[in-house]
């Protein structure tokens, strides 16, 4: 199963980006293998509907779960529609590597 974590940078030492729609990168994690891939969030500079466009990317990637700090109402309803689970992490300074470890249980 694949999970997306919103990240401030493009490697596992980056921190969790709390803004779903305007995050810098998406970290795509394969939970079985522990492999990660980082893609840029093309919606981040959009003047409007950034949340929707970001949700679009998430849905296209075929993931089942998204981890971020906050989701806007539009992103939420779109993600909901495709049965994608949203996880809100309030601890903003978290390093991506730690988030991954807590998921994969290492």
């Amino acid at each position, binding site marked *: 199963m694949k999970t997306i974590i919103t990240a401030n940078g493009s490697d596992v030492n980056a921190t969790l980006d709390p803004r779903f729609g305007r995050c810098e990168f998406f970290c795509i994690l394969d939970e079985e293998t522990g492999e990660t891939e980082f893609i840029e969030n093309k919606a981040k500079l959009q003047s*409007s*509907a950034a949340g*929707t466009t970001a949700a*679009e990317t998430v849905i296209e990637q*075929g993931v089942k779960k998204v981890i971020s700090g906050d989701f806007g109402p539009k992103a939420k309803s779109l993600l909901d529609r495709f049965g994608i689970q949203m996880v809100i992490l309030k601890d903003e300074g978290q390093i991506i590597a730690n988030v991954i470890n807590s998921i994969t249980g290492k």
Partner: protein
Amino acid sequence: MSFKITVASGKGGTGKTTVATNLYWSLVKNFDNDTLLVDCDVEEPDDLLFFKNAILRSEVKVTQAVPEINTSKCTYCRKCVEYCEYNAITVIPPVQYASIAPDLCHSCGACLYACQDDALIEKDHEIGLMSGYDVGFGKGLLEGRLKIGSAAQTPVIRRVKKEALDAASVILFDAPPGTSCSVVTSVLDADFVIMVTEPTPFGLHDLKIAVELIREMDLPFGVVINKAGLGDRAVYDYLEDEGIDILEEIPFNEEYARKFSEGMILSRIDKNYAIHYQKIIRKILEFKQQ
């Protein structure tokens, strides 16, 4: 042709509504009974609150054509998404999802042009309400009210202005506060703009921006200083330097402010206040005859 006067202000809270509703009363009583008041502050129309005897005469839904995607014809090519300047369209090909957010759509029609598969159909979408009121004197009040959640201020204002067109010999528009595009739409074709300000540093700051806008639009205007006596001389110095006409100063009066906040209109208040509005009208008429 109607004579069109628009009351504007660079910021909220200057007493623009006070001036607009009282000026309406004065115009009807002292100048021309055939005067219509139009509330263009569609986000927060409040002129109505000052007319105790208002009776609803007509109510029309204001709609905007928003395209919808027929998913049985859509090929999920995303062409429409590329054409939409307003990010209103979401198409996700792998999951065959396509939809348009009405609150982001500006009805520009670009997507209709882009779609080669005939998958887009225009549907009417409610964006606001237009209401006409009898207020007991004059031609009454025409009010535009934006539907909650809609961002289509300018289309609602345009619709209301279209309705007002030539509906009376004098039309008094109450524009929204600020300098946004909805203000531009409201003042656009005015024969005269009355800018309401207060003599405070904030008032001055916003007045300058508003004056720039009105000058850019090349419209004749004058300033009404409301709440005169409060604040300082900076607004006066600015107006003098710029050679801008002061139409009238309306002194700040606590008792009056209190009565007004209770929704009273001039007719029931101090005669001294009525004089200020008569002076404003006289100045505008002088301008008109030039």
